[in-house]
């Protein structure tokens, strides 16, 4: 209920603002909705959203899997940390644009280059978060697992993984928002479809209703995924905490 109210407030503010500024710069909600419907009818909206989502999913999975493994290793093994640390600092501070442009130059304007570039941008934050998680592992529980002769798999699944879960969730949460942002830049610069590409086109044609139609559809998809996928997952992971409170 409160969510609906806040959504209505957003629409109202938008409408009033468009009346004040003028249609040319900020079209009112019905115009944008019409543009959205037109794109949906032609199928372009779903095609582009789908292309963007697929890139997000691939880049996110790649970066999370690789980043978690590297982060865990760096948190547990001192040598790995010493070797990896300079690279990590370099990657953390490398602007997204540099990675994307270089990837397109070296690997061509290909899908692989785009996904790889997006993943590289997210990778270091996942590594840093998981490294902290691995450093915070409780040695007392490790000892318990050793005394009771837990197998490696059993110890990892029941002792280590639950301790890392909040860190994995944090990395996923911050990583997903980062990927949502960077994927559009990568599409704008070198893909022939996707939300980023369409926004680029709309910008060149100064087609503001189209621009807003794509931006808002994209925002809606992000919102739906966050509420239906990410949040329930986080709640499930921390249910033992909730009940203990």
């Amino acid at each position, binding site marked *: 209920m409160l969510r609906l109210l806040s959504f209505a407030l957003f629409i109202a503010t938008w409408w009033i603002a468009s009346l004040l500024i003028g249609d040319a710069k900020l079209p009112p909600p019905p115009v944008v909705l019409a543009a959205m419907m037109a794109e949906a009818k032609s199928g372009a909206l779903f095609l582009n959203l789908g292309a963007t989502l697929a890139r997000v999913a691939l880049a996110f999975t790649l970066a999370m899997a690789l980043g978690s493994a590297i982060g865990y290793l760096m948190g547990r093994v001192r040598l790995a940390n010493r070797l990896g640390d300079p690279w990590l600092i370099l990657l953390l501070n490398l602007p997204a644009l540099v990675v994307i442009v270089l990837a397109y130059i070296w690997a061509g304007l290909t899908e692989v280059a785009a996904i790889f570039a997006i993943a590289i941008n997210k990778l270091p934050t996942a590594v840093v978060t998981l490294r902290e998680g691995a450093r915070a592992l409780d040695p*007392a*529980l490790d*000892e*318990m697992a*050793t*005394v*009771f*002769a*837990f197998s490696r798999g*059993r110890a990892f699944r*029941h*002792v280590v993984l*639950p301790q890392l*879960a909040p860190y994995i969730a944090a990395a996923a949460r911050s990583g997903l928002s980062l990927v949502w942002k960077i994927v559009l830049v990568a599409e704008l610069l070198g893909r022939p479809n996707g939300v980023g590409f369409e926004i680029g086109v709309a910008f060149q044609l100064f087609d503001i209703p189209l621009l807003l139609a794509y931006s808002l559809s994209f925002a809606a998809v992000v919102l739906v995924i966050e509420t239906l996928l990410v949040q329930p997952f986080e709640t499930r992971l921390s249910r*033992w*905490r909730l*009940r*203990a409170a």
Partner: protein
Amino acid sequence: MQLDVDIKGKSFDSAAGKRHDVLDQIAFTLNEGEVAVMFGPSGCGKSTLLKILAGLDRNYQGRVVRPISARLGMVFQEPRLLPWRSVEDNVRLAAPNVADDTLSTLFEVLELGAHRSHFPGELSLGLARRVALARAFAVEPDFLILDEPLASLDNALAGRLRDQIAALVANRTMMTLLVTHDLDEAVRLGDRLLFLSPRPARILHVETIATPRAARSEQEIEALKSRLSRLDLANM
């Protein structure tokens, strides 16, 4: 099956680079069916000794011979349960082969039946200790280590839990090592009492109690306690 302990010394370097001797010479053997009690002041190195005996610390001089096939059960000073697993899962993860009725009996003896599906965070310290005890007994150990299992519980609760431990220990033939700084607990649960010195720990005095655990009268226990508390351990 027996445990041979012959430790020549154990020290570690502090963060400041200073050498600390934790253990001096400690030698004893522990036989099947016997309960040895380590009795010593706080901070004398008992927990370090237990870590060595449990195989968690291999960095010491001397040797500890434990039969390879011996299953180890341990109750740590803190319960060390997995907070994200239920009481029953905590026990089953440590003892995957435990039979359902063994587990039920164990939960019944320790009065945990109503708490099977609770998470450790929902339990009091006394209950969490019992879960840790259930876990150690569920593996059907050949070598059981109890590190101050009754510390920081009130007297009534400690007394009840002590009787439960006595019953469980009597039920199974194994080597049992109990650490405590409560003389009453030591005299009631132990067959052989090892008195340890302050750091670096060495064995000051060994007291063997001839009467079987179950047959000791209150009078006998009181007499033992008053005799042992008069021991001038500082000058041995």
